[in-house]
């Protein structure tokens, strides 16, 4: 009896550690402690699960410890090796594996049920099928998100005509099949359950296919909450309250994060899921043939920056790709040394994940107070002499204000054109992740500085040192 008490106590403490850890994770000063606390909670629960008294157990500790060693090794090495810029796809991949784990657990139940080894009442069957569906979608959806962010899969290449209708039909079929599986019970047979599983996996892929552009962070967050829900459903299968609490916490927090992100873009979740970004660009006005973007030389850019009173950097995904955060900080230091006030404007969805830019700039030791959020940046912009846009595009697109035909119309953007001058560091005139042209490039105040962001910033550093 005493053993059961300690096991249950360990689960309880683990659950408290999760809640408290998440709470500490929500403030910058305590965030690291929060993460460590949550990991201790997980450790406690794993030990409890290993030692909990079970009926008819043969323990098979060798299998468990072997699996844990392999998984811990892979997880640790990839987490340590991954570059900060590739963080979003890494998180997406880890998330997908969690979903896969839930699918595996549910599959075991399915095999045992249809093999006649155990019975499931209709309530339990609903839970098992939900685990398969939600976990499966989280798994394949996260894999595709990984592929897209890693650049392995290009946006739009897989989109079918009427893709959203196909998705809706697929979801409908899944629900109908699920209901039939529950009603028919064991008579439905393993084959139908396997078709259901495969279809759920295909749906996960298909569901992420049309989503792209600035919506990628939203979908990762949503898939994260799906993994949480599938873990919670698996907790119901195993009648384990700890799994239930952990899974639901993630499901709820993931949902809130998703909603916060949608609000930041002034769009509804439904609108994000249906997509519409990227595909063909809608009726976006874009570049008329006679519009020409004006260029600026490195030398001129350096002089303009050096003699400004205030400079604001607008980092975007291009900064991450070019690994330019540290050079950016060098330019910042040189300008600060000359008394220029340097700030960074962080759009909520800049990069591929909310807060992505904050993480990168923190890596380059940019002090936290220098980072302005959307509202603060927009009120500071009219008094800013120079804006330097490093690899951002859609988040500074004026079409969001004045072109109702644009796919990003209505999204709050950084009003960089209100500053006195703008310089855009960019490889070419190509469109941003949303696949639409940016009228800012042709704006009277704007000058283009073509080239790789890191390269251009390095040259700027040289020029600034020579001044």
């Amino acid at each position: 009896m005493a053993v059961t008490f300690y096991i249950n106590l360990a689960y309880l403490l683990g659950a408290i550690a999760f809640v408290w850890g998440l709470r500490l994770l929500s403030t910058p000063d305590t965030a690291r402690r929060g993460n460590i606390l949550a990991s201790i909670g997980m450790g406690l629960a794993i030990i409890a699960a290993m030692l909990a008294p079970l009926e008819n157990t043969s323990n098979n500790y060798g299998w468990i410890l072997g699996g844990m060693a392999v998984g811990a090794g892979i997880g640790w090495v990839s987490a340590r090796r991954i570059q900060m810029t590739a963080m979003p796809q890494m998180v997406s991949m880890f998330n997908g594996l969690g979903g896969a784990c839930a699918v595996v657990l549910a599959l075991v139940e399915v095999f045992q049920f249809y093999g006649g080894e155990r019975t499931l009442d209709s309530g339990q069957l609903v839970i098992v099928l939900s685990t398969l569906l939600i976990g499966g979608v989280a798994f394949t959806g996260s894999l595709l998100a990984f592929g897209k962010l890693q650049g392995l899969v290009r946006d739009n290449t897989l989109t079918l005509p009427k893709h959203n209708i196909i998705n809706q039909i697929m979801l409908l079929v899944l629900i109908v099949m699920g209901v039939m599986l529950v009603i028919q019970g064991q008579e439905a047979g393993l084959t139908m359950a396997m078709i259901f599983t495969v279809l759920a996996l295909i749906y996960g892929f298909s569901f992420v296919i049309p989503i792209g552009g600035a919506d990628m962070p939203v979908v990762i967050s949503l898939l994260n909450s799906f993994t949480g829900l599938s873990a919670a459903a698996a907790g119901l299968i195993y009648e384990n309250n700890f799994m239930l609490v952990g899974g639901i916490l993630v499901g709820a927090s993931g949902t809130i994060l998703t909603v916060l992100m949608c609000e930041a873009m002034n769009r509804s979740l439904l609108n994000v899921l249906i997509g519409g970004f990227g595909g063909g660009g809608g009726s976006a006005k874009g570049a008329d043939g006679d519009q020409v973007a004006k260029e600026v030389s490195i030398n001129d850019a350096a002089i303009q920056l050096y003699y400004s009173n205030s400079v604001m950097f607008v980092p975007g995904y291009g900064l991450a790709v070019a690994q330019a955060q540290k050079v950016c900080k060098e330019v910042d230091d040189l300008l600060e040394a000359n008394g220029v006030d340097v700030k960074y404007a962080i759009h909520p969805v800049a990069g591929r994940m909310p807060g992505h830019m904050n993480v990168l700039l923190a890596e380059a030791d940019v002090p936290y107070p220098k980072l302005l959020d959307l509202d603060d940046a927009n009120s500071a912009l009219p008094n800013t002499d120079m804006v330097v846009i490093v690899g951002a595009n859609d988040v500074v697109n004026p079409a969001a204000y004045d072109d109702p035909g644009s796919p990003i119309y209505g999204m709050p953007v950084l009003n960089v054109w209100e500053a006195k001058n703008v310089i855009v560091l960019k490889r070419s005139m190509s469109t941003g992740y949303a696949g639409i042209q940016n009228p800012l490039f042709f704006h009277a105040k704007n000058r283009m500085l073509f080239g790789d962001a890191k390269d251009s910033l390095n040259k700027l550093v040289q020029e600034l040192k020579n001044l």
Partner: protein
Amino acid sequence: MESVYEFFNQNLFLIYLLIFTIILGFEVISKVPTVLHTPLMSGANAISGVVIIGAILLIRQSDPNDYLGLGLGFLGVILGMINVIGGFAVTDRMLEMFKRKK
């Protein structure tokens, strides 16, 4: 309808737990500054690795000769462990950088 009443009465504790946990999850997260969104998502992602508990219980309950159960459980433990260890380690790496600049 009778079965719904019965389900509710029998699982009352579970329903309480579910509802309060959902409210707790919403409350804890809703005041987070944007800076912490990525680490928070990553930390929550590590927590969703709790599913590994199920995989551990599965292996322990499997018959030593049931290679399907053991094999799938083994796979589940690997997947779950990557999620847990990788998730916490990545989050820690991110947060470490927030600390250093102070």
